[in-house]
């Protein structure tokens, strides 16, 4: 008897599976968040100058996010490859683009939680300030940037999931690709913070770039993830 299932059902099943596993294993909470927090503290020690820290806070937040992204992506696919569950998903004949979307949304939500903590630590450690208008820009920037990182992280995580030396291969492949996100999100965050006298309005063009990046990797990832996993 042939049974069918909707795409949204697969997306939600994969999304809640990943979030439930994270809630139970607490890898992001107990390992990634302290790791990202330490990066912020180490930068504060290394630069040791309030003016410089306020000026570069945006860049430091997004560098810490991208370093943490590698750990979260590897963890996200380690739970699928540990007992060959990814193979089982392939054999199950389900829509792998729905698996991609479910995993990307789970990754995005984890990155948003991480960025909330990183931005809070920037307020605390670097004494950055944000206006009400700047806050709207900051929230939009975080949403667009983490969505793009979620899509591209899932795509490259799937690409390297079965490869030898994937722990080193993933950063090598992913870093050049996320460079536009690092640049655009940094500029938008600097505008939100008003770093170096930057006007808040200057940040919206960079948010536009982040939106395009997210759209390109969202569509491209949905199309490419299945064939990449299959081979």
């Amino acid at each position, binding site marked *: 008897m042939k049974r069918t299932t909707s795409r949204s059902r697969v997306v939600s099943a994969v999304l809640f599976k990943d979030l439930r596993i994270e809630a139970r294993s607490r890898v992001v909470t107990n390992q990634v968040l302290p790791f990202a927090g330490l990066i912020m503290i180490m930068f504060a020690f290394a630069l040791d100058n309030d003016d410089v820290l306020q000026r570069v806070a945006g860049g430091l937040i997004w560098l810490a996010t991208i370093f943490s992204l590698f750990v979260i992506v590897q963890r996200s696919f380690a739970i699928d490859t540990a*007992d060959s569950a990814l193979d089982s998903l392939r054999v199950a004949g389900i829509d792998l683009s729905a698996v991609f979307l479910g995993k990307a949304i789970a990754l995005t939500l984890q990155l948003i939680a991480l960025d909330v903590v990183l931005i809070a630590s920037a307020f605390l450690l670097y004494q950055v300030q944000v206006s009400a208008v700047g806050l709207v820009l900051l929230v939009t920037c975080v949403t667009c940037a983490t969505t793009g990182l979620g899509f591209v992280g899932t795509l490259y995580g799937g690409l390297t999931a079965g490869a030898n030396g994937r722990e080193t291969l993933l950063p090598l492949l992913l870093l050049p690709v996320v460079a536009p996100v690092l640049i655009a999100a940094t500029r938008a965050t600097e505008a939100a913070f008003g770093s170096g006298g930057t006007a808040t309005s200057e940040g919206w063009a960079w948010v536009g770039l982040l939106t395009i990046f997210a759209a390109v990797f969202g569509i491209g990832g949905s199309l490419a993830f299945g064939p990449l996993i299959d081979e």
Partner: protein
Amino acid sequence: MTGEKVVDFKNVVVVYDKFPAIAGATFYVNAGEIILLQGPNGAGKTTLLRACAGLLSIARGSANVLGCDLQTDRSAVRSRVGLLGHSNGLFQDLTVLENMLFWSRLVGADKTDVNQAMDAMGLSGRLSATTVAKLSAGQRRRCALASLIVRRAQLWLLDEPHAGLDAQGRDELDATLRAARDSGATVIFASHEIERAQALATRSLLVSTGTVKST
């Protein structure tokens, strides 16, 4: 459906890592059969099972599984087969019940299907709330088999299904495979436990250096 050819391979070649792991295999499997794949390590049993599941591309020959041509449409066969390899395909941090519910959502099964599968594999009660990481090897195997039951696979492809099971688990597995056959499924399994496997199988195939012969 009994009597129909569920698997029909003619001169099939499967290249794996530039090496012809299957080199001209010709065999068929009828619906309702329980087929034992025998052969030494490295003979190509696992590759043959993965090819039947549509996971490997067919380099040459004609390969038909459940009416689907694997040369042109490997993906079509996948939702109708269940493959249990050396790994169990489970999520270690989820409980047995959560694993079963996950698979049931993916394939459109309902809670009744999940309960029936867990009952059949003796996974109800306390075990259902245990995370897979805390299960014994045999319990994990039973959990993996339960997921195949939930998916109502028409063709079961099992690689060393008895491995890691105790005597009771092996008896339960044999009973499950016979029940699957009785409910219309076809089973192909590889095993090194020849005596037990031959008692279970309706027919045996010998896999040797990438070719397949009836025994």
